[in-house]
């Protein structure tokens, strides 16, 4: 797991990119807890979201879960191939399993999120 990731308590990760955008996905813990994934609905590019708002839904054989925006901003790109390759989320959740790219309204919001040790402590608690 890369050290530059930040995490939401709702199990999304976010990685700031050099171009000012930020890549978002869901943690390996969340993928494993959901068990067998069967469907994913992504947001529309251009959608504006507030931190904590839904950016899509993911369904496993047992559950449907919302995925939440870790920061406020605009959805500028989605991983359109992912819904047809959901196994990628299990194989590479922090790389090829990315879900959306957001242009944050305020990069300082990242400071509200958990760093890796704090997130790992959360899922072990």
């Amino acid at each position, binding site marked *: 797991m890369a050290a530059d990731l930040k995490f939401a308590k709702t199990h999304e990760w976010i990685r700031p990119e050099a171009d000012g955008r930020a890549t978002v996905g869901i943690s390996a813990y969340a993928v494993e807890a959901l068990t067998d994934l069967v469907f994913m609905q992504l947001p529309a590019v251009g959608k504006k979201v507030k931190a904590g708002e839904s950016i899509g839904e993911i369904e496993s*054989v*047992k*559950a449907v879960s919302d995925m939440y925006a870790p920061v406020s901003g605009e959805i500028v790109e989605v991983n359109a191939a992912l819904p047809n390759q959901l196994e990628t989320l299990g194989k590479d959740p922090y790389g090829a399993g990315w879900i959306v790219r957001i242009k944050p309204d305020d990069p300082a919001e990242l400071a509200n999120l958990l760093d890796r040790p704090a997130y790992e402590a959360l899922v072990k608690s």
Partner: protein
Amino acid sequence: MTAAVLPVWWDDAADGPTNMAADEVLADEAARHGGLVIRIYSWSMPSVSLGAFQPLAAARACVAVSGLPLVRRPSGGGAIVHGTDLTYAAAVPKAHPWGRTPQALYDALHTAMAAVLTDVGIAARLHEAVATDPPADAFLCFARRSVGDLVAPPTGQPAAAGDPKIMGSAQRRLGTTVLQHGSLLLSTNRDLGEAARLPGVAELAGRDDAWEPRQIAEPWLNAIARALGAVIDHQPAALCHGRDLAIEAHAQRFRDRHWTARR
């Protein structure tokens, strides 16, 4: 030490959108209560509840459910034809030990039901995945199998890989709470086309008359309360009572054709 409390609502029959709305209000109650809450309810007419992302076209193409009113659930899983089942909704905060993973609540409630059914002579057990399982995307919930579903052989017969599924559940994992819908098939549903009818608990037990939902629900709730170390607090009024505005606000979404046709 004060024991934990398990609030339980026994609700009157209602239509699909009202039931789905009440279940979302139940999830709010779980957040307020800080623990497990359960609603037992029924349907004012035989109805189909569709999983959150099942294609509507699949429902339209299923002749066995033709003509029945349909509502789309917020939870996942396959379609259920309600009418001869025991329907419940349970909600719990994600921070609760039963709310942390989908399997935890699923197994807790199904294990409690297995014990109740065993007491009445049905050798129910939690399903373990086998290679011969039917496809995970079968349209009807009771035609699917996933780990933790409740299956049982006919009374007097040994357990077998293809034993019928008699209870299934599915969840909606919200921001801070988990809402779980579930159904125990008390008897074969004759509102379904004949080809799609599956045996319920009564048929497996060789009974002509099905158990009433309350006859099974009460010992089930007691088993859940024991597992939680909680005492049941039977609510004096239906969950919908006095919450008309909140229920109607939620119900409008479930009546909206855009919600029903979202996939």
